[in-house]
């Protein structure tokens, strides 16, 4: 029994000893973050690496409005974006619950709990320069512009090129290289 305990201690303490070696050798090589933290960070990067048409309704306002349709699913991770700026414009965060409120939004994140509202929302956003983003499955296939997916332990991004192009937005090369482009069949055919 004593032998076994010693063996077990070796098994369990060995990893702890490895830690010091670990953190120094690989400490800043990889980052791990909460899912919503990553997604919030990506939303900010979309504002940076996607160009809105200069004549868009929201382009020249002093503030960039980021909307969340439904309740904010980002816990505390999205809030710090307010107060930051992108292209010399301050960022404002709003949660919206009705379709009529979305006209002011440059980027609209649809909470997956509002999935059933999506067919109504898209009717309204089509033809406007609103970047639509969500993380429910088939979002990009059902006309959404950017869908967050999950591949093993990483977040992946699916981009509906057709929808983005139709809205006259331009995705910069740097971002384009990182996303998976999807071509959903045209709706209403």
């Amino acid at each position, binding site marked *: 029994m004593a032998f076994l305990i010693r063996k077990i201690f070796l098994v369990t303490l060995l990893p702890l000893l490895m830690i010091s070696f670990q953190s120094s050798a690989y400490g800043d090589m990889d980052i791990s973050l909460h899912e919503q933290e990553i997604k*919030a960070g990506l939303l900010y990067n979309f504002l940076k690496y996607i160009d809105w048409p200069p004549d868009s309704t929201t382009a020249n306002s002093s503030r960039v409005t980021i909307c969340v349709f439904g309740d904010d699913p980002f816990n505390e991770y999205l809030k710090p974006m307010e107060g930051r700026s992108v292209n010399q414009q301050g960022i404002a965060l709003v949660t919206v619950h009705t379709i009529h409120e979305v006209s002011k939004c440059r980027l609209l994140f649809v909470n997956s709990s509002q999935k059933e509202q999506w067919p109504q929302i898209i009717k309204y956003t089509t033809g406007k320069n609103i970047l639509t983003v969500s993380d429910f499955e088939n979002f990009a296939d059902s006309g959404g512009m950017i869908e967050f997916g999950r591949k093993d332990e990483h977040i992946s991004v699916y981009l509906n090129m057709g929808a983005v192009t139709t809205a006259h937005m331009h995705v910069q090369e740097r971002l384009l290289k990182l996303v998976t482009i999807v071509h959903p069949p045209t709706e209403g055919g």
Partner: protein
Amino acid sequence: MSSGNRFNGLIVLYILIGLVYGMGQARAEENIDNFALSPEQLLDAKVMSASKTSEKLLDAPAAIYVLSNEDIMRSGATSIPEALRIVPGVQVTRINANSWAISVRGFNSTISDKLLVLIDGRQVYDPLYSGVYWDVQDTMLEDVDRIEVIRGPGASLWGANAVNGVINVITKTAKNTQGDLASVALGNQDRSIVEERHGGKLGDDGYWRVYGKYLQRDDGKTPQRADAYDGMTADRGGFRADWKGNDTARDNFTVQGDMYNNDTSSLTNVSTFTPPYSQTQVQNITARGGNLLGRWNRTLSDDSRVTVQSYVDYTARDQLSLGYQRTTFDLDTQYELPSWNRHKVIVGGEYNYAGDQLATTQFVTIPGTTIDIQNISGFIQDKITLEPKTWFLTLGTKLERNDYTKFEVEPNASLQWHPDEKQMVWTSVSRAVRTPSQIEHDLTLTAGIFPFGGGLAEYQLVPNKAFNSETLVAYEVGYRNQLTPKLMLDVTGFYNDYNKLSAIAFLSPNLSVSPAIFPLIINNDGIGETHGIETLLEWRAHDTLNLSTSYSLLDAHLRNPAGETPVTSQGSSPEHQFNARALWDITKNTEFDTTLYYVSSLPSYNVDHYWRFDVHWGWRIINGVQFDLVGQNLFDGSHREFLTPTSVNTTEITPSIYGKLTWHF
């Protein structure tokens, strides 16, 4: 209780180390600003475990627990039954290296017949005895997306056998298993487990994967320290393809299939007509099988969809006293209607056919050579919004017709109240049935041979064509509270009222034949009640530390007439079960996880209470290469988890250690 003290000491040690490292980590963590990271860094970042509380969990008026892929991988389990140990309120007992008895809310037995187990919607319980052969329910655990466990009757949706619970194993979509994964695990009990999976694209909008797995498990020791001959070798393989329809994005198709080949053995008592009338022998068990499943899902409108699923499943099993082949065909449809006023209605229908070919052996006599069983069922469920976002009433019922008991009605009513977004109180009343199995209804079995009056006599289990379904009326009440974004509490109480429980009775002996026959019959003379509480507390103590603890209490009172024996006795399930788990991300690349389990005694089997301690250490050596070291059942020496020491197939559960290397490429 010296083992208890040792555990206390260890726990203190871990907490201390945890605090020291936790504090160091905390400072490092706070420095990361997710808005300052580049898109490359964000997409490269590893997703940390969040609180498990999904909206779905908070919204369902039932005792649901979802075991995520991360939970499974970090538990160190190498099989589906072992992974279920973490789930609150589930009793997992290992009999030997290749068999388990698993139940929810009591009635644990090697033939736990009140639990419905599904793998990707395919029923895997065995209609011969309504139980589950856990040795063949396996796949690559890396590809399991989640295991949903419902404690309590799921009968109005799932139907027969979903009496005390439903276990639903759901694999990842092919889209989420792209690329290659290869792993090798080597250990003292799990001698070797080798896995390989490859995923690719199918046209523009489709994905596929194939996998193969080989495993070899070592023999254990009997309580008498002799070789238990319970080793196992198995190979399995399978595929899955998911794609979308051509003309519309509303159609999703899935085709998947698996094949397996299991060679196991165990010690068994064999009756003989010569002295000593019973002999312990090693029986070789071969099990082979395969399945093919197709699913079509069409989204009709924003809140309406239809799913059609069909599968065929072939399984063959050969062991000393039993041999059979079975082909199952199942067709299942489900239609979710668009919301109408305050009503959200789901309807469905299912047809299931199982054709069994049994081999008549010296000990099993069957009527004819085949047994065909058909089951047709339909269900309807309406979720009524009484007060938007606050009060919901769900009414549902399943109506099914089976060949044994004809029509069965399994209704359910549940009421849920959300005082605010974080809390939910629910209560429900349901009726569920466990329909007869072939053993009870059709088969004649020799249960034992003994000398009698100068000659021989045999205990013979005779078929009972009048055997009826066991019935349950269950009353449940539950409360969930997402106290803070980091702290979740879930409490469920239940009272189960059973009728027509199976019991074994002696009929009058027939002494005019040789050997004389002492017939036994399984009837419905048992009744009883169980009640209990299940609690779960999950706490994300720190960004790098997830803690959870669960406790379940079960109190069973089962009765049957004098002279009869219950098929499953009340002392076969533990009164108390407890577990505490800590998942700790020591650094970005290392994780250290510990789980402590306590299971109280099983008076029916003379099994003592036991503690179990599992440790998992994971180290991502470089991107895509991970090393895991797992120790299970440490510090205890050995213990039995189920069955009496005289049950020859029981083994001692001893410490298991293995190392595993995984490549993603």
